[in-house]
């Protein structure tokens, strides 16, 4: 394992020191591992809190700021944050208008956010609502699994719902919008290599040079199918087809994201986006906005994911609204 670290067990704490040094506009609680905006939540504004295991940067800390999150709770690498962390963020970020927990659908994340919401409501009376994101079409959604994973759509949801909260919409309206976005988006990911969790010290799974994993999540968990490595055009097809088969994206404008898993260079991500855009055009999908880059990563995994979101005028207006975070910035 070759990594830019001091010690495997100190990666998160050391990284938060770097975040604080790089972003004086943010406020970092090192003890509770929470990244806040530099100024308290405006009175009357619903606070948006997300969090999850670390290793997906810029998600979530990179999306704290005007137009997106109010706080992000950082768990250990690939491990959910704990209820006391989330409870603290909930208490501090609440302006009295209530708090929306943005949770990716993983067993641990859901349980820890649930416990935190129970504790916070019981102890301080803060109103907490939550949205559980489950956009990964690689996972069969049935009562026999933990359900679809929350992946790329999380980035688009935090942007759009963040803009709505900034407008001053109340908790019920913000929550309803979050659920609408979740129902309107789908993602599919693939990996060329495994990632290496610092505490494990070696790749999470073995992937021969001539093979790739289709349907991976963002934690180095192996995917649904291992298939021979193929040209980018074919990989794009293997990502786009299951998404289009799952939901009709031809009835209106679409926001598309080509996301890097952390270990693939931008030139390959643009190359992949070109292939994806061609396929979408052929399928009658109109991409109104797009995002290409590393937004929700899996440490050093090479690979990418595609996310599509059905939009309308309201969602596009919220998408275009000003955002000022270290990970996304426009209109400011």
């Amino acid at each position, binding site marked *: 394992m070759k990594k830019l670290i001091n010690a495997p067990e100190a990666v998160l704490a050391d990284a938060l020191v770097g975040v604080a040094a790089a972003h004086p506009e943010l406020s970092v609680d090192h003890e509770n591992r929470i990244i806040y905006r530099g100024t308290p939540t405006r009175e009357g504004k619903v606070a948006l809190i997300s969090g999850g295991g670390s290793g997906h940067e810029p998600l979530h800390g990179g999306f704290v700021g005007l137009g997106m999150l109010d706080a992000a709770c950082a768990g*250990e690498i690939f491990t959910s944050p704990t209820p006391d962390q989330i409870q603290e963020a909930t208490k501090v970020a609440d302006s009295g208008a209530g708090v929306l927990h943005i949770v990716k659908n993983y067993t641990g994340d859901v349980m820890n956010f649930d416990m935190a919401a129970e504790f916070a409501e019981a102890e301080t009376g803060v109103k907490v609502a939550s949205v559980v994101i489950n956009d990964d079409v690689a996972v069969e959604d049935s009562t026999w699994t933990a359900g679809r994973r929350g992946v790329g759509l999380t980035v688009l949801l935090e942007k759009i719902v963040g803009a709505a909260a900034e407008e001053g919409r109340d908790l019920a309206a913000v929550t309803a919008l979050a659920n609408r976005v979740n129902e309107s988006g789908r993602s599919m990911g693939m990996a060329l290599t495994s990632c290496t*969790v610092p505490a494990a010290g070696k790749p*999470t*799974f073995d992937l021969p040079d001539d093979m790739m994993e289709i349907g991976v999540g963002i934690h*180095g968990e192996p995917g649904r199918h291992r298939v021979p490595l193929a040209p980018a055009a074919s990989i794009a097809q293997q990502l786009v087809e299951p998404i289009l088969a799952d939901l009709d994206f031809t009835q209106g404008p679409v926001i598309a994201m080509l996301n890097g898993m952390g270990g693939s260079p931008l030139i390959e991500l643009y190359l992949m986006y070109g292939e994806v855009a061609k396929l979408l055009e052929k399928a009658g999908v109109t991409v109104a906005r797009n995002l290409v880059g590393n937004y929700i990563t899996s440490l050093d995994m090479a690979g990418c994911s595609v996310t599509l979101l059905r939009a309308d005028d309201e969602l596009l207006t919220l998408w275009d609204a000003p955002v000022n975070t270290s990970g996304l910035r426009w209109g400011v």
Partner: protein
Amino acid sequence: MTVPTETVSLDQLVDWLARFRTLVTANQEYLTELDSAIGDADHGANMARGMNAVAEKLATPDAVDSLFKTVGMTLVSSVGGASGPLYGTFFLRIGTSAGPVTTLDAGALSAGLRAGLAGVVARGKAEPGDKTMVDAMAPALDALDAGLAAGEDLASATEAAFTAAQAGRDDTEDLVARKGRASYLGERSAGHIDPGATSTVYLFEALAGALGGLQE
């Protein structure tokens, strides 16, 4: 052989937790290896971190409920992932079930463990056969109760629980995961032992050891 008045002391409960910590830390890499196959390679590190945090708080408990409340909350706040809420809820429920007492008789121990299992099932929404820690814990408690009903002492009954937990863990190898991160693998999760069921075996190995079982 009947020992109806046999009780478990606070010292023995603390010893249970200390032994659990020793087993978890000694097998940390093995747990992580199992988790790498079907999960996200963090179960060993997370459980070791949690039980090390628990060990710092075990000094001198004054009652069974406060002991397990401390253990449960410490795990909830230091482990993260799914294991934190699940093991945390397990110990919190034992404490609530036992109440402010300083000893547990066999019936109270069994009732506490049953309450813990019920908490794990409620929190994780897992049923037997889903390839989770429940697949080791449920048969272990059945064996414990069967042993106690047959008049065995706690050492023998908890040994039987440990043996049943091992068998339950081994049976997870052929199961397809239906809960937790391994469920994303579908059929590909078969052929691997479940890491959560494996750490649960250590829980019962530690219990049997603390209550006088497993002597050579």
